[in-house]
């Protein structure tokens, strides 16, 4: 279960000036980013409310997957416990809105900071754990979280099993409805976070993170403070996931312990692997897969076998088949596939 084998692969050195269809690769990238942004801005005006809501969810999950990817993809630490950070962020926002009547946009950063601290503190003891043992420790975190949220003595804050209602913001501008406003709010947060992650992994810090992933002993001998970087990465990862949780709570308008079971961690993991490890755009793909993977399976099963509730079990069979197919055919995720195509067609 080593990360380096699953990741990177055919990365192209930008200095080689390779071209596809006579256009240089950096220009392709710029074009893709502009086109993606344009699409992201136009989409909420051409699809109906429910799809806008789904796309908002895609971005929320994309941010969470990005957080996990910073930890696993770039730094080589496993986590099955990111549902806990997501829950921490979501509850921070919900409690601030519900109990202290703070406006929703002021709750996002505090939720992130609390999760940063939480992630950092968890990252410290996690330094002693590697690979499977770390996975197990974080798993414990994911399993314990819903129980803690139910705990009787926290009920005044957490609302216990009943959960908390979160006030959904109305659109402050006239030409956007509430769904569209929330979409742009999340999109804006997502873009800021992506730029942040981009700067982080391309710089000195990112090189240190990747060096630790690829060979911790070599990294240490080069003077990298592995302990500090590893726990800081845990913190940053928690920050991203916590913000995703905060946004997710606002989008869903509700938090309850049952929203943050261990399964949520698995969805993040699935999104990350399907999107591709150690890639930032891959997180967006991961978000899409988390939201639409299940829905797509549901549609296919309904179309093939009709609307009979007794056929519902097949949805997960089909979903499993997609996953196995993905792992075999595109082992580095969607991002890996794109890289492979680029490597093949670039001249």
């Amino acid at each position: 279960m080593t990360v380096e084998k699953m990741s990177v692969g055919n990365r192209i050195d930008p200095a080689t000036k390779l071209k596809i269809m006579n256009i240089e690769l950096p220009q392709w990238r710029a074009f893709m980013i502009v086109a993606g942004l344009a699409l992201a801005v136009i989409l909420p005006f051409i699809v109906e409310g429910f799809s806008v809501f789904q796309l908002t969810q895609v971005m929320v999950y994309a941010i969470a997957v990005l957080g996990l990817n910073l930890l696993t993809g770039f730094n080589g630490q496993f986590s099955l416990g990111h549902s806990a950070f997501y829950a921490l962020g979501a509850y921070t926002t919900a409690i601030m809105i519900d109990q202290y009547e703070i406006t929703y946009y002021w709750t996002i950063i505090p939720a992130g900071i609390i999760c940063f601290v939480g992630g950092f503190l968890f990252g410290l003891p996690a330094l002693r754990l590697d690979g499977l043992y770390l996975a197990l420790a974080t798993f414990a975190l994911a399993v314990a979280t819903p129980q803690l949220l139910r705990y009787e003595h926290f009920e005044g804050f957490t609302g216990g099993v009943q959960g908390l209602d979160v006030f959904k913001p109305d659109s402050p501008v006239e030409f956007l409805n509430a769904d569209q406003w929330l979409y742009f709010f999340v999109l804006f947060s997502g873009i800021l976070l992506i730029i942040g992650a981009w700067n982080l992994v391309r710089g000195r810090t990112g090189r240190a993170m990747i060096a630790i992933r690829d060979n911790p002993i070599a990294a240490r001998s080069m003077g990298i403070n592995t302990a500090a970087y590893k726990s800081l990465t845990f913190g940053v990862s928690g920050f991203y996931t916590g913000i995703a949780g905060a946004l997710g709570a606002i989008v869903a308008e509700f938090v309850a312990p049952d929203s943050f079971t261990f399964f949520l961690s698995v969805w993040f993991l699935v999104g990350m692997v399907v999107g591709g490890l150690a890639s930032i755009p891959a997180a967006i793909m991961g978000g899409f897969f988390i939201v639409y993977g299940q829905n797509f399976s549901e549609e296919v099963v309904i179309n093939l076998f009709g609307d009979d509730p007794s056929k519902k079990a097949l949805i997960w069979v089909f979903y499993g088949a997609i996953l196995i197919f993905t792992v075999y055919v595109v082992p580095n995720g969607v991002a890996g596939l794109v890289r492979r195509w680029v490597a093949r067609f670039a001249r």
Partner: protein
Amino acid sequence: MKLHQITLASAAVLALGISGAMAANAPGVTDTEITIGNTNPYSGPASSYSVYGKAIGACWNWVNDNGGINGRKIKWISYDDGYSPPKTKEQIRKLVERDKVAFTFQTLGTPTNSAVHKYMNKKKVPHLFLATGATKWGQPNKYPWTMGWQPNYQTVGAIFGNYILDNTPNAKVAILNQNDDYGKDYVIGMQKAMGDKFDKMVVKRETYETSDPTVDSQIVSLANSGADVFVNISIPKFAAQAIKKMAAIGWKPLHLLNDVSAAIAATYVPAGVENSKGIISVDFYKDPNDPEWANDPETLAWRKWMAEYQPRGDLKNKMNSYAWAVCHTMIAVLKQAGDDLSRENIMKQAANLNQVKVPMLLPGMVVDTSPTDFYPLEQMQMMKFDGERNVRFGPLISAETE
């Protein structure tokens, strides 16, 4: 008038005409069809409840094969939410906004329905007969579009409270309850029924979490309190553990067990039939396995439906008779609504069920609602396990919650 003005004017008239027609009926209602939405866990930790979604689907198939309701067939769209509230939110929005269902029916679970409680009321979509016994589904003033169905947990708690006051007024009471809204609602019901006597009579109260491995230590501590009445509010797994442990340590109080666990196959058999003798509980619908109903016409009709529409369904599973009863409640509402299938009227009819008889409920039980009473079922009957079956005794008890 210029040409484009004429076009515009006629378009406006046309649009008015269309919207006028739309106002009469809810989305999802045509001359031949009514679309009903549902969310139910078909996967995940609560997937044993998938029986409900399947059985109700089979009930609609039966309705459609018998000519539908007022000539309209039912289109039943039931999505899997895996018992996860955010997923419920997504699926419900999909049902309302994309599939354009007329209303939702029997959406399952307390946390899951909580996630869409506000949404449904904001959208003014009937959110009918939820498959959960929480008390909060009956607030016509605050949430006029949401209504539960089964007797709520507080009602059952109140029935137990009254039973204790009437039969064992000098008892020392011990309570075990699951530590969540389900468990607490029962206790609240008991408190309401017993008033200030609750604090005097209850000598010990213990709780458990669904994640606990056993409730052995709780039972020992309750037994040591010297209580002679034991109110057991737990799901089957823990109820069986409690019964076993009580037998092992020789604690023999009057045992009042909540209806959730009063099932022979799920609780009494694993706990030991001999140990379970004498346990008192309540119920509101017929257990088709009970020999008392062997020749009951309603049960026979139910068996016929099961054989034809759910040939592989489990006849021992009481969820299937629950589904039949709740489905007939919905049929009654739609029949009563006639051809005015606007959302307003569907909700209005749901809130005006006057002593409606529904198959598979206990004899004498009726569904009854009013614009101020959003609790359709508020009666139950006590029963005692005699080692073979639950023998009902006493009259139907009603405990109106407000």
